[in-house]
């Protein structure tokens, strides 16, 4: 009898393999995030201290938008030949399916973040590398919260008439506390705060990730069945 985690792992590996084969999702996400950063440069005075102070916001906006695009694609793959139905035909628990897809999205997001941090350094002239270890904590929490909520809503929006277009509309308002926590922690760390200085924000990010991780895991079942 395959266990919960065998299923999770199988789905996760399949997504990795698909991505490895085509490399389309991660490269499209990175390119898109890069474009968002550039677009910001046009909208504001580039190189000015304003831009620097805005770096945390730009980082998270770019990752969020690119992440939403990646989520949409991740579920478009499952929708293509009704594959999600195929998953539901197997004895896998809905929670295992959720976790497998969520893990795939999280890994994609983390890789994306690793790729665009250097871009931030180059284009916005912010010193990130010195505080990198500290920075990882809020980034991880924010990504976890995003992946949980995003995976749930991506599965939902694929079954509506608007398809992927509904995904940001559902996700962004709910995501506000997580984004705020992530941006403010980032800002604090850039300004030299220690992890304990920004503890309230970390607490918020952790609470969001924990609460919604659990809630989405439980609610995913209702999204899958028809």
């Amino acid at each position, binding site marked *: 009898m*395959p266990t919960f985690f065998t299923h999770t792992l199988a789905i996760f590996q*399949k997504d990795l*393999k698909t991505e490895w084969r085509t490399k389309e999702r991660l490269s499209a996400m990175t390119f898109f995030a890069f474009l968002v950063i550039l677009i910001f440069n046009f909208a504001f005075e580039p190189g000015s201290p304003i831009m620097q102070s805005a770096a945390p916001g730009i980082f998270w906006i770019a990752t969020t938008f690119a992440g939403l695009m990646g989520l949409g694609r991740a579920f478009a793959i499952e929708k293509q*030949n009704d594959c999600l139905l*195929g998953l539901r*035909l197997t*004895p896998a628990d809905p929670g295992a399916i959720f976790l497998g897809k969520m893990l795939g999205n999280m890994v994609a997001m983390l890789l994306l973040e690793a790729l665009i941090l250097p871009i931030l350094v180059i284009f916005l002239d912010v010193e990130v590398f010195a505080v990198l270890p500290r920075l990882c904590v809020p980034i991880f929490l924010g990504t976890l919260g995003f992946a949980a909520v995003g995976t749930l809503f991506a599965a939902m929006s694929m079954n509506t008439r608007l398809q992927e277009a509904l995904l940001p509309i559902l996700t962004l308002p709910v995501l506000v506390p997580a984004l705020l926590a992530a941006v403010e922690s980032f800002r604090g760390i850039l300004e030299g705060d220690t992890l304990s200085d920004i503890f309230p924000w970390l607490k918020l990010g952790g609470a969001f990730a924990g609460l919604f991780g659990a809630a989405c895991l439980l609610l995913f079942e209702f999204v899958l069945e028809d």
Partner: protein
Amino acid sequence: MNAIELSNVTRRFGHLTALRGVTLSIPEGQTFTLFGPNGAGKSTLLRIIATLGKPTSGTVHIRNIDVRESPEQVRTHIGLISHHTLLYDDLTARENLTFYAKMYGLKNKSESVDEALLTVGLADRHKDRVRGFSRGMKQRLAIARATLHQPEILLLDEPFTGLDTAARSLLSDMIFNLRAKGRTILLVTHDLAQGLTLSNHFGILKRGELVHESPTENITETELRTIYERHVGNLTQG
């Protein structure tokens, strides 16, 4: 033991009633063909048996297991060929099957996969991505996917759609083989002659009601056509 037992199954989609109190028992080893006009509810019925949709009311038992109570247990016994292939375009034939083998928790994964590929005649194309497959090849792989875990119960929803003559006879042979092995098969098709040949029992669904059910023994194609038209009329359903 009945392989499939539906009692008074009703399914509503909003205000549309797709199934109205369907009661049906299919004993183990039976090959049952379900006929019916477009929109009669055939696919809906198959989805419910496959645990993909829940009935609005009524109960479904698969091999004496209540589907509502332990769907996971039921799923290991069921294979489904639906209108879609349920295959990942960017994985190869082998990777697709291996993935499903993992999901079904098969013990000897690679042997099962090899055997399934051989049966549907795709052994030499196992390393090619499904995206480049022709429609017939995809359908063959879908057949392999549905039968990979050797399910006791096979649900086939218009499985001949788009297949060429060769692939058709391959699938018919396969159905006969499984029938000989004592598997239970529920087939949906619009082709009366084919349904008659393949099965030993048939039913007619009309507007969500099972209006006829009888063995195929001693029934000729013309008789079947008469029965079908008496029940369904010559009109498609609105």
